[in-house]
């Protein structure tokens, strides 16, 4: 992309948002694509609702909700494969569950037998991963950080299954260069694997956003940065965060591809991601994806930051809940019935309930001060 200015390809925009061509998908097995997206979005939604409830009852001290981000994150992770690196943030439960879990092994009836999958799930034990993830959320010994790190602040690697997941540190923006570094390792190894990373629109104001993207583009790293633009950062609206029309157009300044997409539409999102992944795999460098999503919850559960969102704006987000949109779309195209959707919702909720309850019953770590700060 370096010698082509960023506006030379249809997927590069500095200009107004492109409406992504979802129609192609609808013609070619859209019902399968929708079913696959829906399954993971529903699992993610039930995952979050469970913890939100636990927060309300005091069983959990802190929770950042992924509600509203499911379409963007599930679709993004649907475009990566075994051996690719996922670098996630605080609203990316959808990407993590999509990457970790083979939902068919947990809810066998969720897909019809002739289903063409968009992406092959990773091998390995999905139930165990889900369970350990729940332990991680609850600070249990069996969590991925054995209780030492909070919620999504952990790494999980299963080299034998090509699972590479690098979690966040709190400092926003910091993971952008690190994720680009994962992409650098693929480039050094001359492999065609890619790294994807998420960031909120607020953290696009950090220096690491600039430094990370600039180096990634100069070195043509196989890297995709997805901005989940929910138009609010804690209590700060975009008007106080940046003065440009859209964030995707910043890609022009870095000489890389940039795309703006409706993050509530998993099919459009997946298409954009597939193109970006293809670009990265073929050595054409990084892509900046700006996915617009809604602000459905406050900054973190229990704060009053949602009060800052004007009523009309909030109503707009709630009316465009990606979960409702995909379910309506599926029912209207005659793919499934409302009753079936309800059945699946119950199954996902029951599965999450079971796993989280099991995690709750697991031991907390024993007090220790000897966790090593150095690798041996």
């Amino acid at each position: 992309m370096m010698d082509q200015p960023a506006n030379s390809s249809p997927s590069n925009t500095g200009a107004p948002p492109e409406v992504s061509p979802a129609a192609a998908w609808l013609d070619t097995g859209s019902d399968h694509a929708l079913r696959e997206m829906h399954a993971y979005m529903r699992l993610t939604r039930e995952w979050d609702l469970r913890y939100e409830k636990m927060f309300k009852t005091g069983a959990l001290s802190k929770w950042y909700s992924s509600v509203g981000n499911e379409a963007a994150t599930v679709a993004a992770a649907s475009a990566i494969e075994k051996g690719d690196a996922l670098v996630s943030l605080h609203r990316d439960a959808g990407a993590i569950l999509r990457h970790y879990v083979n939902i068919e092994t947990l809810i066998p009836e969720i897909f019809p037998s002739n289903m063409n999958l968009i992406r092959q799930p990773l091998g390995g034990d999905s139930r165990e991963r889900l369970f350990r993830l729940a332990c991680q959320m609850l600070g249990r010994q069996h969590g991925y950080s054995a209780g030492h790190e909070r919620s999504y602040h952990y790494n999980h690697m299963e080299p034998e299954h090509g699972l590479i997941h690098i979690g966040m540190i709190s400092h926003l923006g910091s993971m952008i260069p690190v994720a680009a570094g994962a992409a650098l390792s693929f480039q050094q190894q001359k492999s065609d694997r890619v790294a994807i990373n998420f960031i909120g629109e607020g953290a696009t104001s950090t220096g690491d956003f600039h430094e990370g993207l600039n180096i990634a583009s100069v070195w043509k790293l196989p890297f995709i940065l997805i901005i989940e633009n929910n138009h609010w950062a804690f209590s700060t609206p975009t008007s106080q965060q940046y003065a440009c029309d859209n964030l995707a157009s910043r890609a022009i300044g870095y000489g890389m591809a940039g795309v703006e997409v409706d993050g509530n539409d998993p099919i459009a999102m997946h298409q954009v991601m597939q193109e970006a992944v293809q670009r990265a795999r073929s050595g054409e460098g990084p892509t900046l994806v700006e996915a617009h999503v809604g602000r459905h919850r406050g900054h973190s559960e229990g704060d009053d930051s949602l009060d800052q969102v004007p009523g009309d704006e909030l109503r707009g987000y709630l009316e465009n809940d990606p979960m409702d949109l995909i379910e309506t779309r599926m029912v209207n195209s005659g793919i499934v019935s409302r009753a079936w959707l309800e059945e699946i919702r119950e199954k996902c909720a029951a599965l999450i309930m079971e796993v989280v309850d099991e995690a709750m019953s697991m031991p907390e770590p024993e007090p220790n001060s000897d966790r090593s700060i150095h690798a041996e």
Partner: protein
Amino acid sequence: MPNEMTIEENVLYIEALSHALRDEMRHDPSVMLMGQDIAGHGGAFKITKGFLDEFGPQRVRNTPIAESGTIGIATGAAILGQRPVIEMQFADFISCGFNQLVNVAAKMYWRTECSVPLVIRMPGGGGMGAGAFHSQNVESWFLHSPGLKVVAPAFSDDAYRLLRSAIKDPNPVIYFEHKFLYRRERTDLKGTEIGDRVVGEANVRRSGQHLTSISWGWMTHRVLEAAEIMAAEGIEIEVIDLPVLSPLDLDPILQSIEKTEHVAITHEATRTCGFGAELAARISDEAIWNLDGPVRRITYPDSPSPFNKKLEADRIPSVDVICDGWRQALQS
């Protein structure tokens, strides 16, 4: 690949660094270099001159001026199997990459059990009238950050050996190389064994029974000069050099103090919360009953580095100042 080792007499400190990098790159294909102007130009100090031709642009990468981005990218690559060595153009500029270093790289292993085999080379220190932003000794910033190892060799042989060990080490290592020593210090490289990690080292470079001196980097050379002068006065100083500051090898220090009952720490870094303060605290904890006087610190004052060489020299512990400090320590 063979673990070749440069064996040469009378090697300049700066050449020892080049040799170590080249030998380790020949030995391990996952070693890669990143830094500003290090490729064609060979770096501000020419330590990587010729590396681009030998190892190619993929392993010898010029970076944009982006310390945070570079350290972050190196950290990500290190997690997934590369062994990046970053050259800070000057140690002072590490402040622009501070967060990546102390929060991402340093804490990574403790948080995630993913190791980060990363070396950051830090051309640091003063004595050349380079002003407030090209002279600093910032080791304390990193000694206060659990998860990092900190190296500060004074001699060419240690510089060679420890740079290779640092690259093999599975942890982030901050490697302070002193600019004043680059073209002044010479030692033989004898082909001593290269460790596969950095461990604490406290080396007795001169023995004596009257006072234990602790120092590292350039100051060890001044301390050795000062010890000559004191010897002429009949006072024998035991000179302990710390080529590795973290992990700290405290035992040789405590053993020496048991013998000398007096101790002084000399460092070029500023005084308050300098590593001397920590050493003084450790010595008090472990050996106060063996001491026959207070722990003395001979340091730079709490001041930025002035540009004028006379003003700067007035602040860096001189041989005379060191001798005076020792005399005071022995009087008390």
